[in-house]
């Protein structure tokens, strides 16, 4: 798992250095980061289902934190991906995208508050 974290971090760094347009919002690296986090979250869910423990996962901080991340990054993934295209089309699209992003951010923050209530 640690190797997977390291590899994905290196790929993100390489994308940022080699492929990113520095004069604009770095959507590509954000997209890949979002995708990687979503994959790790799904792995976490599958592992939790496969390796059950006496401790109830729903009552743990990490479940709610992971849920916050998956909701935020799975939706933001599309926003980051099409950000450049949409904003190039019109400024109105930019506002809509920003509004959706803020709503999702609020949702994930709410989940993070729940996470902080659990230990």
């Amino acid at each position, binding site marked *: 798992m640690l190797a997977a974290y390291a590899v994905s971090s290196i790929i993100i760094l390489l994308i940022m250095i080699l492929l990113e347009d520095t004069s604009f919002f770095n959507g590509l690296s954000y997209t890949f980061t979002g995708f990687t986090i979503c994959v790790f979250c799904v792995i976490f*869910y599958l592992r*939790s289902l496969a390796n059950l423990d006496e401790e*109830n*996962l*729903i009552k743990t901080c990490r479940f709610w934190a992971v849920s916050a991340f998956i*909701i935020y990054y799975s939706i933001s993934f*599309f926003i980051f991906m099409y950000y450049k295209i949409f904003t190039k089309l019109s400024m*109105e699209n930019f506002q809509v995208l920003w509004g*959706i992003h803020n709503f*999702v951010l609020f949702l994930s923050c709410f989940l993070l508050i729940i996470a902080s209530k659990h230990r």
Partner: protein
Amino acid sequence: MEKVIQVIIVTLFIFLMISFVILFIILYQKRHTNYLKEKQLLQSKFQQEILQAQVEIQEQTLKKISQEIHDNIGQVLSLAKLNLNTFPPTDDENIRNKLEHTRQLVSKAIVDLRDLSRSMHGDRIAEMGLKNAIENELDIIKNTGQYETTLTVTGEYYKLGQQKEMLLFRILQEALNNSIKHAKTKNIAVQLNYAPSKFSLSIRDEGPGFDLQAAGLSTMGLGLKNMQNRVAMIGGLFSLNSSRELGTTISIDLPTTITG
């Protein structure tokens, strides 16, 4: 219009993700509950098996001791009594009295050891039946001259099955042992109630008792814990009542299926 469609698609996706999390919670809770149930079942099964093994080992040990008492020590004492009987008659009254006293002591030792051997031997308990085995056990205690024992039997007698009767008898022995050790009283009462759907056994002493709430269940001795586990093993209900005024009563209730 295009913008509305975009918003609808994004909203649907948000709902999809939230549904995914909710679905996971439901699935996880279901699996977790099943997992806990299975684990509990396995644990209780494991405990039952350990208890069963413990009981079997104890029975084997007691059987061996009982056989040794009966076949070895009992025989030696019988031989000693025989030798005493073959002593030539003497005019010395002092020696005669001593011989008679020794003969009586040896006879008592033979009887006591025979009773002890009986109460230890599991097969003999099964042969005698629970009621007679308890009667025999109470007689042993009564014969020491230090205790008064009473046995009350109500209802129509029926057999509970060899294993259950043996376990109940061992529990009774442990309870009687506790009464002798801790209760500074002469009176010990045992009650058997053969109701059609339920068998009850209670052992009561009029000793000083103890404050159950002050002592707490955590301070329950190993003997009491063992009794509780054994009763649970045969599907019974164990209860302990003790107070400074009324003494201590141990009750066992066992739902029955009459085995004839």
